[in-house]
């Protein structure tokens, strides 16, 4: 348990250091979101979801393809909530609770939501 706490603290520190991106433009947000989605050390969403972006490499198929996001989530806040903690909708979900377990910072979550919302 001690180790876990340490891990968590490190995670917060890292989040805090990554700083605000409030001033980022929409394009910058989408660029960041793309990195987060595809980078193994960040969101690694690509390991479970395919997406129609030329940079996509070896997408997994544990989860649905990222298409028609606007139709599936007319309310963007609901989409963000799904990314933040998929276990609310499905407690058995294989999808990690990205926000709840501090896998990504809040800014990174905003960014990845903007990125997938284009598809």
């Amino acid at each position, binding site marked *: 348990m001690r180790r876990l*706490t340490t891990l968590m603290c490190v995670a917060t520190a890292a989040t805090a250091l990554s700083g605000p991106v409030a001033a980022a433009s929409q394009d910058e947000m989408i660029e960041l979101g793309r990195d987060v989605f595809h980078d193994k050390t960040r969101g690694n969403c690509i390991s479970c979801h395919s997406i129609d972006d030329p940079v996509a490499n070896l*997408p997994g198929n544990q989860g649905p393809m990222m298409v028609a996001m606007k139709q599936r989530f007319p309310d963007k806040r609901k989409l963000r909530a799904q990314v933040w903690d998929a276990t609310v909708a499905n407690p*058995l979900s294989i999808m990690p609770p990205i926000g709840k377990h501090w896998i990504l910072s809040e800014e990174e979550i905003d960014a990845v939501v903007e990125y997938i919302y284009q598809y």
Partner: protein
Amino acid sequence: MKTIKTLLLGLGLTALAPLTQAAESGFTLETVDPEADRKALQEFYQNRFPGVPLEEYVNGIYAIDPPSREQWDALMEFPPYEFDLEEGQVLFETPFANGKSYADCFENGGIGIRQNYPYWNKEEGTVKTLEQEINECREQNGEKPLKWKKGAIAQISAYMAWTSRDNVIDIKIPEDDPRALQAYLDGKQFFYAKRGQLNLSCANCHLQGSRRLIRADLPGPMLGQPTHFPVYRSKWGEIGTLHRRYEGCHRDSRSVPLPPQSEEFRKLEYFQTYMSNGLVVNGPGARK
């Protein structure tokens, strides 16, 4: 700090209340029924992968994914564990300094007994694994214990598995000692409980997620997982034990693995191997 506490509490709760999935009977001593679990698990995979005969499940992912099977068949033309088998036999047969050998420690001289491991040991009140008894045999005879995860212990275990090939796995949960059922239940809970930063259970990947891609990785079925251990894994470039593999799968969920041969891992092995009752021993195995 408040968030940390809430988060930790959340984690604790998840661990305490393992979530029910497709293939099991219950999570309390009153409700748990190992035979029902075993049947339900078989049914789960037979529905999920119709047409795959049960006895094929000793081949893991290669039982259910034809493209992987093709690569594996090519690999098996020259099984990569041959050297370890020979080495294992030599080690097994070489007497200790006191003149005794492994054969003196095991039933039937250690030949053809793999199917009975792990087992519930009433006197010691714990689950005993084959690797554990290999090391105990050494220590009883004045030799140093071997490292748990690879090398000589895996080679000896491989040889002992090989002498047991095609024997039907027969793990018992003695009814005259309720602690045995508890050990099974603990192993089962371990398998279904979510853990680590990624909040993944073994069941997430090996039941729900079996034969679904996680990037380029394809988790296999849990049924039959222990039958072919120890395993020569191309990724390792060498032979390794089941508990070494458990460790790797912990890393995949970003959780801190327990030590090999820890009580928790032995109970997990007890549960997993009971689930494979009726299948045959086919160790050592080879995996990508």
